[in-house]
């Protein structure tokens, strides 16, 4: 039996005030009322406490008992996380469905990981060795894709007195015993618990230098993110936040994806659940579900659990980072998380700051994004967490608090543009408003693969887009015909770049993923179109002659007519472009 630590005094939606509270600690997990609804203590005041409850409180009455769970809100970490979908407080939704019907009833208490399933464990250390927290005890093939590395819990150290032989174990089985210097013997099981609000320790932080390749051209080429980096993606409704998050979960070259659907649509999670097991990762040939953990707290699920969901997700990400993996966390949408904070804060009658959000919103955002980074793990491996957080600004207005504060704590911004989305130009990442501070840090990687050209090509394109932005102001007033052809070629090249390069169809079999090599080749062709075209125009050719070249429509279609495996065909297009340009040039020599 759990210990009773107080009684319900008042119920206002997801916030329960308690009285007669003794022996409770801040952020302790509690269970409330006859249904044993899960909650967390968020305020202590004498013998009174405020509890945020992760489940629907309908029917809860004053006087009901509050029980202590004796620990803070924690996640269970071990093999079996991958391929599973959890709610905001890590309850496996598939098991819930199998036990009841299509609805999520309240007061469900079930095990996070499958306790009956056995795993093939292979030890990698021997008895007698000295170990410290975070070291690898042994390995388990968790999915076809990922080798799970069972770790010594971070707070344990000493000498190994016994380690299990290779064989089948369940997650509650002890696989190793460690004798601490004090003589106390600790048991290492195939699972461990960790409080979600406390970052898991690492040995140190490392500089960022490798890009997270996403296969999305606008991201990789114009606004790249490093492994261990942070990105914010703000955009009004319908601008494609979720589409970007889905594309990255599918195609980015992270080892592990943690997808947090925070306060979003139920059908979006269903979409992921149905499509991911069928999608094959281009690098490994395995279904991408094998590297994915899903956290789904949809908009109609209890608001307090929405608040917890991002912490649940990031802690799971840290666990895989500690095993030496590169993890990408998709948080969609952090605005819903911030709104959950606002709602809970309002119900606790705290003094509001900007637009009703609590004054500690920026602190919480900073704490969350700082859990990203490239790190040397306790087992001296390299692991990273990248965070891509989407923001849903009210009315699409980026001056609102969540967008503004998040921008302070991340180093890359993909601003989604309403006009682009309306023209069905996806991904609707604005090339004028977005930025990435990672370009320099990761440029070596690209320079190596592009014969040292990448930085320059990228800069040329950025310059053209900037100039085009200015010229468009003129065009809006007088029309493009008035501009000299030396300027019109800037418009045409930018137009080509937008349609043939930046715009990418995530539902087209070929276009949905674009390798870095293909991106470099495509960019070269487009830059050549500009520089050769400009030369010809200076000789006397006009813009219409350039647009009438047959190769023009080859360039416009190369993104979906040429697959990633046959990119040498782009070289042929480039040759054809050079020949066509020469012919035009010859006419004026």
């Amino acid at each position, binding site marked *: 039996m759990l210990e009773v630590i107080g009684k319900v005094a*008042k*119920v206002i*939606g997801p916030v329960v*005030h308690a009285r007669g509270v003794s022996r409770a600690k801040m952020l302790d997990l509690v269970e409330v009322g006859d249904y044993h609804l899960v909650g967390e203590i968020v305020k202590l005041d004498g013998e009174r406490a405020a509890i945020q409850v992760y489940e*629907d*409180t*309908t*029917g809860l*009455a*004053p*006087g009901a008992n509050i029980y202590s769970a004796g620990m803070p809100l924690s996640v269970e970490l071990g093999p079996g996380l991958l391929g599973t*979908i959890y709610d905001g407080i890590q309850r496996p*939704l598939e098991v*819930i469905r199998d036990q009841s*019907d*299509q*609805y*999520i009833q309240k007061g469900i208490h079930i095990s996070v990981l499958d306790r009956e399933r056995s795993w093939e464990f292979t030890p990698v250390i021997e008895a007698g060795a000295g170990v410290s927290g975070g070291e690898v005890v042994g390995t388990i093939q968790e999915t076809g894709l990922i080798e799970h590395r069972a770790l010594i819990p971070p707070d344990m150290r000493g000498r190994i007195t016994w380690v299990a032989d290779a064989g089948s174990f369940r997650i509650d089985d002890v696989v190793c015993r460690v004798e601490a210097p004090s003589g106390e013997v600790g048991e290492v099981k195939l699972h461990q618990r960790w409080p979600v609000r406390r970052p898991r320790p690492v040995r140190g932080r490392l500089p960022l230098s490798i890009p997270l390749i996403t296969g999305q051209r606008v991201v990789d080429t114009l606004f790249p993110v490093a492994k261990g980096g942070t990105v914010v993606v703000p955009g009004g*409704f319908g601008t494609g936040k979720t589409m970007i998050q889905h594309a990255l979960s599918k195609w980015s070259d992270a080892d592990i994806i943690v997808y947090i*659907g925070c*306060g979003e*649509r*139920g*059908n979006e*999670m*269903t979409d992921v*659940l*149905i499509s991911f097991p069928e999608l094959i990762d281009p690098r490994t040939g395995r279904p991408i579900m094998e590297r994915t953990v899903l956290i*789904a707290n*949809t*908009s*109609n699920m209890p*608001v307090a659990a929405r608040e917890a969901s991002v912490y649940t997700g990031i802690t799971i990400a840290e666990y895989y980072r500690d095993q030496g993996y590169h993890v990408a966390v998709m948080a969609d949408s952090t605005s*819903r998380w911030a*709104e*959950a904070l*606002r*709602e809970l804060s*309002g119900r606790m009658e705290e003094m*509001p700051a900007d*637009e*009703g959000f609590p004054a500690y919103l920026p602190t919480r955002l900073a704490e969350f994004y700082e859990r990203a980074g490239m790190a040397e793990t306790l087992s001296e491996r390299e692991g990273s967490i990248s965070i891509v957080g989407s923001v*849903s600004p*009210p*009315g*699409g*207005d980026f001056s609102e608090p969540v967008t503004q504060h998040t921008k302070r704590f991340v180093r890359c911004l993909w601003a989604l543009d309403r006009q682009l989305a*309306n*023209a*069905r*130009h996806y991904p609707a990442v604005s090339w004028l408003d977005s930025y990435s501070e990672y370009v320099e840090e990761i440029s070596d990687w690209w320079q190596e693969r592009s014969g040292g050209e990448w930085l320059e090509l990228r800069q040329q394109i950025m310059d053209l887009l900037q100039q085009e932005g200015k010229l468009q102001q003129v065009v809006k007033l*007088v*029309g493009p*015909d008035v501009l000299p052809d030396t300027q019109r070629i800037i418009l045409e090249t930018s137009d080509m770049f937008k*349609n043939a390069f930046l715009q990418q169809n995530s*539902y087209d079999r070929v276009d949905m993923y674009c390798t870095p090599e293909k991106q470099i080749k495509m960019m070269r062709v487009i830059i050549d179109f500009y520089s050769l075209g400009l030369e010809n125009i200076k000789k006397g050719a006009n813009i219409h002659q350039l*647009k009438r070249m047959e190769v*023009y429509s080859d360039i*416009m*279609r190369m993104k979906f007519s040429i697959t990633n495996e046959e990119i040498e065909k782009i070289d042929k297009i480039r040759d054809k472009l050079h020949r066509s340009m020469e012919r035009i040039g010859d006419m004026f020599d």
Partner: protein
Amino acid sequence: MENKVPEGREYIGISRVAGPLIFVNGIHDVGYNELAEVIDAQGKVRLGMILESSDNAAVIQVFEGTSGLSIPDTRVRFIGEPLNFGVSEEILGRVFNGLGQPIDDGPPPRVDDLRDVNGLPINPTARDYPRKFIQTGVSAIDGMNTLVRGQKLPIFSGTGLPHNKIVAQITRQSKIVGEETSFAVVFAAMGIKHDVARYFIRNFEESGVLEKVVLFLNLADDPSVERLVTPRTALTAAEFLAFSMRMHVLVILTDMTNYCESLREISTVREEIPSRKGYPGYLYSDLSAIYERAGMVKGIEGSITQMPILTMPNDDISHPVPDLSGYITEGQIVLERELDQRNIYPPIAGLPSLSRLMKDGIGEGMTREDHAHIASQLFAAYSHVKDVRALAAVIGEEELTPLDKLYLEFGERFEREFLSQDEYADRSIVETLDLGWKVISTLPKEELHRITAEELSKYYGQ
């Protein structure tokens, strides 16, 4: 009342009345969100819901309003359970008020099961992904913003725009091509005018579906607090019909703006901290608890397709009600005043309208293989038309390049031939797509980058 022994616990006298809320002291053991009966001096019973429950006080929201309640004479009885709606197939063809009490002259319908109107969240793993194309016969929807079964697709309208006509047309014409299934319509009216309600009822009658319709009416002169449960009661009926009776249910919720205003009213009376425009901070969560009750469930035949209507105050799409709705629903059909003024029906705005589930419901075997590309091309071209028109307004049409003049012509044809259709015209998807090709063929082939070469040779200029 006189000789009746009260069931549940009854308290005499309340401590305060503020707008639609009453405050009761000296009580105990009252559950949050549960139901209370509020009895006035004349013995008339009104229903209320507990918004806040503490050790010896409760805040109750009274659905039928608080007029005529006095502090000493009002009695409150706590039922001990949340608001329920009694379901059985006999609800079909009946008219209820927002609380689910029958208001036509018929006998009370049989009750097979009592269901909590608040519903429960559907487990995402139990959902089936909607991908079955619904042909509405309206080109702007079928061609450009395809509706699929189980989707929640709202209409963002403005005062004076023909949203009712469009929804009536959709209810008349909607079908799954090549399939005969049992369907039903659940119609929830929140704060709309009597004649609007009558318009819909007459429409259901004319198309002979009235016995397949369940109506929940909370009209403009009915108590506004009742609006807060009207959509919930209606969706409880819809869930029963869809998931227990296995019917395909179309739910029309009109007008969600009125619903949100009632929510704001209550929030203000409770002195809660407002967020934008005085609406409470939990408006998003509250709306999602309504909109998310749409969809399909694995292994169960039925479905709930939602078509909420909301009027954008001052035609402003960034107003909190359309804005938050757009973040929850799977797209939106936006009506445009300018098109309406030019007498184009349906005045469905080309660019801001969107159907998020379209991608999975179209293409070979569902509509036609060229659907995605032609739709995308129409969007892109029409978006350029808007730029050209802006330019033409500055420099004059004569000064436009020949290509831009073609774009103007395309824009005109797109609006007059493709978008525009009669209120009773029921176009098949093939007609719609062919029409799309007809108007896009105004433009030279070289401009159509979003269409493959094969599609061009098959359909261009045909």
